[in-house]
């Protein structure tokens, strides 16, 4: 019984109930017309006017020459700079012997509690920088939304849906892989202060898993959990938690107060003060952002 079902499904899939003609694919990739005045369709074929033609000709003649000149000079200067650099692999260069780096490595463990020195740097010593980074990501999503977001009541493109969601191999691979990808991403985020990893890399892995899921299954399943409203809520919560946590450490640090976030024993999972919660916040922002980029670019809404 089951076997026959599978065979039927395979035959249906093999015979191709959808066609990959240029027409359907073209519709899929062109997207809706931009509101506003469209140029007349024959513009590309109209001859150039005289003044315009000479202008364009001069530009076309000069542009490659100037850019090659610029390229040659830039490469020349860069290579001369490489000649002046200290030899590769040397430990006594100014970049490797500066006081800051010695301080980071020698005291990072006791001051931040993070075994991973890089995590200690980016989420404790320079956490303000990372806060800015998270806001850069958020701002990028907002900009992409402004440019590409479609109204919610846009009717569904059945053809697009059928093309995107009928691949047997993709579906079964995703069914097998997605749980492990998500689990690995969570592990990378939670392990950020103990070893290689952190919010950015783990968030990117989770985002990749979400994208694989959304690309292979019915997107409405994921939309029930992660739609525009939950996206707003989650990212806002993560960013404001980060900001408030940093406010707390700035306030306590400036006034010489004891924070409630202690460094704990290095190497334990609940250690390193704020680094673990901040890693989780960054991971949430990054994963939601990656999935948001995919969703907005493919169908114009999250």
């Amino acid at each position, binding site marked *: 019984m089951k076997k026959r079902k599978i065979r039927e499904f395979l035959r249906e899939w093999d015979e191709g109930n959808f066609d990959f003609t240029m027409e359907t694919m073209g519709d899929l990739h062109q997207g809706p017309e*931009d509101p506003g005045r469209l140029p007349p369709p024959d513009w590309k074929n109209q001859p150039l006017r005289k003044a315009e033609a000479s202008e364009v000709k001069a530009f076309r003649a000069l542009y490659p020459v100037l850019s090659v000149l610029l390229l040659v000079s830039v490469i020349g200067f860069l290579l001369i700079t490489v000649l002046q650099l200290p030899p590769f692999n040397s*430990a006594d260069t100014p970049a490797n012997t500066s006081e800051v780096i010695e301080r980071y*490595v*020698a005291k990072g463990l006791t001051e931040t509690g993070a075994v*991973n020195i890089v995590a200690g740097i980016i989420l404790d010593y320079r956490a303000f920088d990372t806060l800015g980074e998270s806001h850069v990501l958020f701002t990028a999503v907002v900009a992409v939304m402004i440019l590409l977001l479609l109204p919610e009541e846009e009717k569904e493109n059945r053809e697009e849906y059928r093309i995107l969601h009928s691949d047997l191999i993709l579906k079964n691979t995703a069914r097998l892989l997605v749980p492990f990808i998500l689990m690995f991403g969570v592990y990378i985020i939670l392990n950020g202060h103990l070893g290689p990893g952190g919010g950015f890399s783990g968030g990117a892995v989770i985002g990749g898993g979400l994208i694989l899921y959304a690309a292979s299954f019915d997107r409405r399943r994921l939309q029930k959990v992660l739609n525009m409203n939950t996206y707003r809520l989650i990212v806002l919560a993560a960013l404001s938690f980060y900001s408030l946590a940093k406010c707390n450490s700035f306030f306590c640090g400036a006034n010489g107060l004891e924070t409630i976030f202690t460094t704990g024993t290095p190497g334990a999972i609940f250690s390193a003060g704020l680094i673990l919660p901040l890693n989780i916040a960054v991971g949430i922002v*990054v994963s939601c952002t990656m999935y948001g*980029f995919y969703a907005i670019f493919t169908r114009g809404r999250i």
Partner: protein
Amino acid sequence: MLSILWNNRIQVVAVVLFAVGLTTLLLHKNLLKKIIGLNIMDTASYLFLTSLGFIEGRLSPIVSGGNTDPALYVNPLPAGLVLTGIVVSVSVTAVILALSMRLYRRYRTLNLDEIYRMVHREQEEED
């Protein structure tokens, strides 16, 4: 001079990658290829930064056994800087791609020359 270049070959590769990216950015007319060139330039700068912090034979900056001797680990600072760079480049790429999608929807082409021509015509018609 050649021996210096050979010793610093990773930085030389970074410079070459940067040049490849800049060439793509300047000499191609297709907007997508320009974006790819910009990303190659980003990658070149990451390679350069990480190569500055690398010292052979030292461990990655993850403290093992409570040993915090700075002479034991590679420079951790470039890793943090590159992380910032990667995040910013992802955001910039997304915004540029969104902008070029809007351009494509308006003018039905990604060729910059043709877009220039159409914009020129449009302005003439408005005057």
